[in-house]
């Protein structure tokens, strides 16, 4: 008997590890060539102090999953079909051109994660993704994971950086009428780190609202650090260098044109397009926002949805959910 986990990102790997720690066997299928999903590429966003982004909860997870004897890891593999009944599923998976069947699957955990809004956005802000200096939140994370003592990354620091918030979220036109929950947190922390390393760099935060990151006067403290906040909706980005951002200032409805060395799109979370197939195969439904949702309790259906496959979540929320799901599968109290 084994538990099948679809997706080897934070949610999938956390669940896998919690399950094998409780004596279960796990089959983990991941469509990419390595596990780790997006989180593996994230960087630490502490400036002078830790800001509780939760990344440190990962620890040695990737190595542990890759080397654990009770986890059968199948990369570049997709789940094609599920047969049988809850408690004794058979899962059909595809790797390159060959099919494989796993029998004796007691439970299925769908942890297919999310995609960045830039990949899925419809009629989004016009920009060219190929230009240097125009990056997404995820790319900024990757850059920051290379940080060292005196510099965030190699080369000259940018003289000005614009963070474009709510990219692809909270927008009727983008068909994503929800807040992606994490962008205010990660982008503001990134802005703080930038300002900490390069105090002379102009950092402008173009935002709609300001979600709660910490109790206390978090946003005011960032303003005190010198980060400029402008309530706005960007309209267009003209590729430079320097890049020009055209935006509407909400406060007086004027159109402003400003140039920046670097523009960061704080992408939100969109449902994984694989969700369509997985919903059908695993008999799941969709939430109003288009993320996966279990129709009935997983103790009846044998299928759980963990992580951002079910909607935008923070790292610590995903880890807690993975732990709770693993407990449920192992028949913990409840």
């Amino acid at each position, binding site marked *: 008997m084994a538990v099948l986990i679809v997706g080897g990102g934070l949610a999938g790997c956390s669940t896998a590890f919690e399950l094998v720690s409780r004596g279960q066997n796990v089959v983990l299928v991941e469509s990419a060539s390595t596990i780790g999903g997006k989180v593996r590429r994230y960087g*630490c966003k502490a400036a002078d102090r830790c800001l509780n982004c*939760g*990344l440190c909860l990962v620890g040695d997870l990737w190595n542990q999953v890759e080397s654990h004897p009770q986890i059968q890891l199948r990369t570049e593999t997709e789940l094609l079909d599920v047969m049988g009944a809850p408690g004794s599923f058979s899962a059909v998976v595809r790797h390159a051109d060959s099919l494989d069947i796993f029998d004796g699957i007691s439970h299925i955990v769908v942890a297919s994660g999310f995609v960045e809004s830039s990949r899925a956005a419809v009629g989004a802000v016009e920009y060219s993704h190929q230009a240097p200096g125009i990056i997404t939140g995820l790319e900024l994370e990757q850059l920051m994971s290379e940080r060292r003592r005196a510099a965030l990354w190699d080369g000259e620091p940018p003289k000005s950086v614009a963070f474009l918030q709510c990219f692809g979220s909270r927008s009727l036109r983008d068909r994503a009428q929800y807040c992606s929950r994490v962008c205010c947190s990660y982008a503001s922390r990134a802005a703080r780190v930038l300002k900490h390393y390069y105090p002379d760099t102009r950092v402008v935060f173009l935002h709609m*609202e300001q979600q709660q990151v*910490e109790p206390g006067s978090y946003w005011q403290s960032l303003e005190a650090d010198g980060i400029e906040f402008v309530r706005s909706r960007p309209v267009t980005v003209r590729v430079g260098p320097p890049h020009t951002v055209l935006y509407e200032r909400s406060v007086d409805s004027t159109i402003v044109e400003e140039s920046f060395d670097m523009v960061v799109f704080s992408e939100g979370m969109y449902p994984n397009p694989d969700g369509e197939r997985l919903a059908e195969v695993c008999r799941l439904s969709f939430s109003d926002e288009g993320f996966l949702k279990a129709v009935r309790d997983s103790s009846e259906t044998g299928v759980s949805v963990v992580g951002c496959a079910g909607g935008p979540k923070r790292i610590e929320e995903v880890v807690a959910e993975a732990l709770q799901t693993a407990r449920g599968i192992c028949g913990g*109290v*409840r």
Partner: protein
Amino acid sequence: MTIALVGSTPVNVILEKEFAAAQMETITVKSNELQRVSGHIGDFRLQTLDGERRAGVIVVTEPPEAKLPGIGHALLDSDPVSHPHTKPVVLLMDYEQESRQFMTPVALELALFLARRRRTVFFLKRSVKTAGTDQERLYQEARGAGVVFVDYDQVQIAETDQGFAHVSAQDESQSLEIGPCSLIVAETIHPGKTGALADCLKLRRDRWGFIDEYKHYLYPVMTSRRGVYAIDTLRACCEPEYLEEAIAAVIGDSAEQLTADANLLYVELDKEKCAFCYTCYRACPHAALTPNQAEAVMEPWEEACFGCGICVSMCPANALQLTLEKPAQGASQSVQIFCCENSGDTAISRLQEDLAHEGLTVSQVSVTCGGEITVERLLQALRQYEKVIAAVCMDDACQHFDGNRRACAQTERAVSMLEAAGLEPGRIRFVQLSQGMPRLLHEEIREALL
């Protein structure tokens, strides 16, 4: 197994029911009746005005205090519906304190309710927090129903002749006057009684004075003390999802902690050496030591101990010792690095390939927490190695709260001792980092070796 709920709130009723369904009996202790708590998970003794109560696990349900901000209370309208419907209603958020996330759905529902009754509703805010499930849709619905959302920088409140409110709001370019109107204000949240409770239960508080359960490694309900959980019942009233998650976490975690295999890593005390000075008792971030008055020595509880080693390093009598110590790994002629499990350890494992590629080796000593690092250990290391690096967590990231700063203090002392002895102080390096900064450690190691 008995769960002691500390604090009386309506949420207790739900908790009792859910815990009962999980075969757990609950007892309730009012916060002002609790005098002292001793013991450890599985065997807590709560000294109350009614005598001693015992419980396996404690859940703090006392809510933080929700206070109305400093506006004359007479101005605040608790029942705006009954007023003549010509008066507009102002819902004021973020006044004096950034309103919490969980208040948003309450405020939006109220705004929507009033708007549907054809009242003119102004929702004044610095920001509307819609990150929760369905909250964005609620917000759009409220806008669709005619609620006017206003962003403000400054706001002033005055009283009109008939006892209504007059609200003036400004931002950088415009100002808005609304009045006479009915005024509803979002409360400000303060620790309240939870502060004294935290002290009584020896729980760490966060930088805002609340019982610390905000840190990512404590999410969702854990506190600094094993077996003591804290549910923000104020938030639970507004966010049923959170309550569900919290209940599941208490049940799941407590069951696992109580049936876990014996804790292998904890601290042992030499009774002969103990001077009963209470230093370890005060310094322990997890309240894992209890005074044994009969023998006049301190007693560590294996069940409560996290093995962080802070007490070991602090004990002036050298009476405490960890049951496990990891041997140094990796051969090196010149550099030994003390890595804390939460930061340095993982960072260095991400560097192994690069280090090997560059032909650099270090001797690595893993410690559970930087708090275990002592002056003596650093100096002893320098007898064998050219340089010693202590790599611990950043401020606020230490999972044992103070370990990193204790390590900093110890390192500073070691450095000053070297200086006073005419030895090279630069032989000891101290670096604060997180797992996500391997390059930083790489730089330190390269510098130390070359």
